[in-house]
């Protein structure tokens, strides 16, 4: 919409100006900010030629809460919990990345018990996120029933979270140096004996209801093609990039906590279309199950939290920590002046980069393809805007 060259005057002062984002005979429609396909307040201005898309122009900022600015006035214990509100479907993993950054800066040794609990919680969050994505994506394609099937399994998962963390969505369970308190006494039993068997017995229903459906396959095969080079140049990460063959799993590349002790595969597809993105996420659910199974019965005894000072002060300098959320790579960058609050904080959120390829992958396709591609990109709007 704006171009930096138009904004800059000859004397290098900013001047507001509008650049026509469409030609006069273009047929544009607004998808959003209130629209069933965007799952939030995302505004897409799409230019059409009949049913064929000429251009997609995402217009952000409807749910900007200036989380980065807020974090600058919060202490290193508090700023973790604001990040739950970014990508609310993987709030545990957001918290995890922030806690890891503080630990790295202060060189705190996290007890092994806490590491195990954290990774199990991360993977449970990933499963919950992928289940919700699966239902919502099917709803984008016009099938309503999968949504309820996904929520049937997710319900048990949120109950397990509620037992331990006291919350079902924004758990706020991580603290610098470990976790807030020991898990609920039935946690291990409920995860290994109730949830995992239930999920494994229901996975085949997902395959039958959606994956094997001929209409669904026709809707996603070859749609929203993102090549290996494009995935890298748009900065895509997570399942979106892995579906194009990019090896970018932070759990493998830069393992944190006990990820280097567990056996799991980085799920890679090479097709790069919506079907590949779908298959990556479906297989990631299975990998997460495998990770939890390896850890859940072997949680070591010990402390759940390392001893840290009451008031944390990060040494002067710049710190960066990344983690693999359900959507991709979350980067936390903190500039510290040595005080109790960050001087500047910046989040590199996966959703923003993944959204940026939307125009590229939907150009020339139909409106139905746009919705299908958007569904498989798995966008969470508060994550994009922060």
């Amino acid at each position: 919409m704006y171009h930096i060259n138009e904004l800059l005057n000859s004397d290098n002062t900013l001047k507001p100006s509008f650049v026509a984002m469409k030609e006069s005979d273009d047929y544009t429609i607004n998808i959003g900010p209130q629209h069933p396909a965007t799952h939030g307040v995302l505004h897409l201005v799409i230019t059409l030629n009949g049913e064929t898309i000429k251009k997609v122009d995402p217009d952000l900022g409807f749910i900007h809460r200036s989380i980065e600015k807020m974090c600058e006035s919060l202490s290193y214990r508090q700023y973790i919990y604001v990040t739950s509100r970014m990508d609310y479907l993987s709030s545990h993993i957001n918290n995890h990345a922030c806690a890891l950054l503080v630990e790295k800066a202060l060189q705190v040794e996290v007890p092994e018990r806490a590491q195990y609990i954290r990774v199990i919680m991360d993977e449970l969050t990933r499963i919950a996120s992928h289940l919700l994505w699966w239902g919502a994506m099917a709803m984008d394609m016009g099938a309503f029933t999968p949504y309820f099937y996904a929520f049937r399994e997710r319900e048990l998962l949120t109950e397990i979270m509620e037992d331990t963390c006291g919350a079902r969505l924004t758990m706020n369970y991580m603290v610098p140096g470990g976790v807030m308190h020991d898990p609920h006494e039935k946690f291990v039993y409920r995860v290994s004996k109730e949830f995992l068997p239930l999920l494994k017995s229901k996975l085949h229903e997902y395959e039958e209801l959606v994956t094997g459906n001929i209409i669904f396959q026709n809707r996603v095969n070859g749609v929203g093609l993102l090549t290996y080079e494009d995935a890298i140049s748009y900065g895509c990460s997570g399942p979106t990039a892995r579906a194009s063959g990019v090896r970018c799993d932070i759990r493998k590349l830069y393992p944190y906590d006990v990820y280097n002790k567990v056996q799991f595969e980085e799920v890679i597809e090479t097709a790069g279309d919506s079907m590949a993105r779908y298959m990556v996420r479906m297989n990631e659910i299975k990998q997460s199950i495998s990770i939890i199974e390896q850890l859940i019965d072997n949680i070591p005894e010990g402390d759940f939290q390392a001893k840290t000072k009451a008031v944390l002060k990060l040494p002067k300098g710049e710190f960066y920590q990344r983690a693999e959320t359900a959507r991709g790579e979350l980067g936390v960058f903190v500039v510290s002046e040595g005080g109790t609050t960050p001087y500047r904080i910046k989040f590199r959120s996966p959703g923003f980069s993944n959204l940026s390829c939307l125009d590229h992958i939907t150009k020339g396709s139909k409106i139905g393809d746009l919705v299908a591609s958007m569904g498989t990109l798995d966008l969470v709007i508060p994550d994009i805007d922060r």
Partner: protein
Amino acid sequence: MISFEHITKWLQAWLNAHMSPILVLAVETVLIVILAIALFAVLGLVLVIMERRVAAFMQIRMGPNRVGPWGLLQSTADTVKLIMKESIVPTHADKFLFNLAPFIVMIAAMLILAPVNFAQRFHIWDLNIGILFITSISSISVIGILMGGWASSNKYSLLGAMRSGAQIVSYELSAGLSILTIIVLCGSLKVSDIIASQETGWWIFKGHIPAIVAFVIYLIAVTAETNRAPFDLAEAESELTAGFHSEYSGMRFALFFLAEYINIFIVCAVGATLFLGGWMPFHIGHMQGFNHVMDYIPSSIWFFGKTFFLIFVIMWFRWTFPRLRIDQLLNLEWKYLLPISMVNLLVMTVVAIYHLHF
């Protein structure tokens, strides 16, 4: 055995005994109109509650269960809400066409009811071109949809109407051809003749494979014609919010909504009449005892049972399948269904000429 026939005959005799013939005609017309509108309202309410219960059943949830016994009054409450709601007309809408469109859709749906045989010798107007009448009148509703979409002055509505036009016009061909397949067999367009020709067995059993193929194509085509999922592109809510009726509210929206359900009822009634023997009971060859028991079930129950079974199948489609894309939808019709139904019609003609059917 009580049947509608006795009631109508008694009413006719009673009216004739008390009034002049012209007055009798007038009174009967008024009665039929009242009955038709009442049937309309009841069908709409029943089908909406049925849809919601079927959806709940498919989606492992309860469905409406608060208003009235087992939630049966839910759709009545919804209707009351819709009647009391304000009907908003957008500022830039073409007001005349905008107001006219729902009524065209509704009138088309109402007219089609005329030749349908609801039970043994119980129908409004059994004209000799009954099936032709049904297929031709049902095409009118697309005009209402296009009109509503155009007059709303909304881009979503226009796209929805455009899709709907392309879709309904295409799928009418296969629906018409599969209807013709049965007409070829029984040699009459009159609805009561078609039902009478199935006294020895329903056409889906007697007509060999072509009849089954025609039945399947008919089901697919009418699902598309009534804008139902997986062919609900005209109102694809994840793409076009509500498609052609985005701008309609209150009772005007309710008319579109009601017409959709009446259309489903009618296409299923026609399907039951053509393929499943209308009100004819189910008979098995020489099992006299079984056939006798079947004969005791009233013909109206047979008709509505078959129709509601087909409606259930169409609802089942909706809550199972994802939606097609517009080009896939048209490909399916022009590249697959239409050639298949043309060949099917030829095969059926050969079957009919050489009396190869049972």
